[in-house]
């Protein structure tokens, strides 16, 4: 009796289709990628139901981390004018090279006395330095200097004043930042948050539903 032969098949799966999908996804993610800003200052912002995007242009941001250290950063084109104002306020001299170095620095997180020295470092060296934060106590309120400079430099321009605080930031620190802004007659701020769903059934949710039904944009 001839036995039925079991054919040995080579287990060759055709991976072309899978490969296609993989690279399609890859292309999508490369194009959609917006890299996380460098983690020089790590901040976890609280959630809010606000669905307004944070301004991406002409901003001046005050960042407060979980250890209540304060840093500022600003929109690229605002950097040079703000530094000049700081120079005028504190009688410090900034050479064109200093301004150039400042433009290449992302965060300001040092007392003014160490600013030039830090700015001149290369990117790798900057990564190694732990920023101590800008002094903001009442005897040496350099945060106020920066904010005053920012307000002066942005006169006549639409600048958004952003505050980016960490969940664990103390209210007292936040209050000091607000005070520094208020001394410069700035009363409108944007608090950076993470988007969160509006709880179903809440007042805002009902309001949004009414707006959607009447064809308006929800808030």
């Amino acid at each position, binding site marked *: 009796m001839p036995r039925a032969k079991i054919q040995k098949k080579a287990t060759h799966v055709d991976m072309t289709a899978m490969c296609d999908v993989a690279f399609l996804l890859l292309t999508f993610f490369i194009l959609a990628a917006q890299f996380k800003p460098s983690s020089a200052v790590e901040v976890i912002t609280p959630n809010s139901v606000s669905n307004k995007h944070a301004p991406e242009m002409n901003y001046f941001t005050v960042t407060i981390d979980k250890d209540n250290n304060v840093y500022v950063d600003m929109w690229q084109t605002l950097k040079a004018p703000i530094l000049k104002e700081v120079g005028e306020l504190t009688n410090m001299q900034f050479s064109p090279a200093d301004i150039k170095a400042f433009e290449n620095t992302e965060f300001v997180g040092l007392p003014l006395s160490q600013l030039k020295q830090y700015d001149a470092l290369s990117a790798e060296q900057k990564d190694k330095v732990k920023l101590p934060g800008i002094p903001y106590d009442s005897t040496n309120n350099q945060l106020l200097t920066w904010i005053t400079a920012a307000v002066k430099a942005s006169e006549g321009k639409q600048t958004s004043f952003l505050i980016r605080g960490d969940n664990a930031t103390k*209210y007292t620190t936040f209050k000091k930042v607000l005070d520094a802004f208020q001394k410069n007659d700035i009363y409108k701020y944007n608090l950076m948050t993470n988007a969160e769903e509006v709880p179903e059934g809440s007042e805002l949710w009902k309001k949004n539903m009414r707006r959607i039904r009447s064809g308006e944009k929800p808030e």
Partner: protein
Amino acid sequence: MAEMEEKDTSSKKGPGVKKAKKAAMHVDMTPMVDLGFLLITFFIFSTTMSQPTSMNLNMPKDTKDQNQDTKVKESGSLTLMLGKGNVVYYYYGNDLLHLQTTTYKGMRNIILDKKSKTPPEDLFVIIKPDKDASYKNVVDALDEMNIDDISRYAMVDPTADEYSLIQKTEQAAGIQ
């Protein structure tokens, strides 16, 4: 590892004739797929999908002139004091003696309850974060105003009396 599989090329051609090798082009794509997925994973992790949003905060101008202060009806006011350990203390009007305690979750019902009992033009919520409150607490409270559609609210520092009362309550309740 690209394989060139040979097909059975036994032919009926004569011995002197060179066999034309027909190679089936089967390229092993496993490493390429591996690489592809590796890169995908990298980009998924490095992409921040959710853009940060921002919440508007408008503070009133500081005035020393008492006539310009916002007048609030006692019957329509609700004061929320944000304390240590995610606890909220609240009282109605000027009735500081009847200080009650709640949490951030329970806050909504209290606000909505007050809202339903008060004419909308009188309703005013006062948020008083004390020294021990965190920034998250403040944002949560302000966010709650948005969620409950409260149009009139203000953020003020607690008075010395209120702060000492909170501290006493905290000590009694053993909140660290």
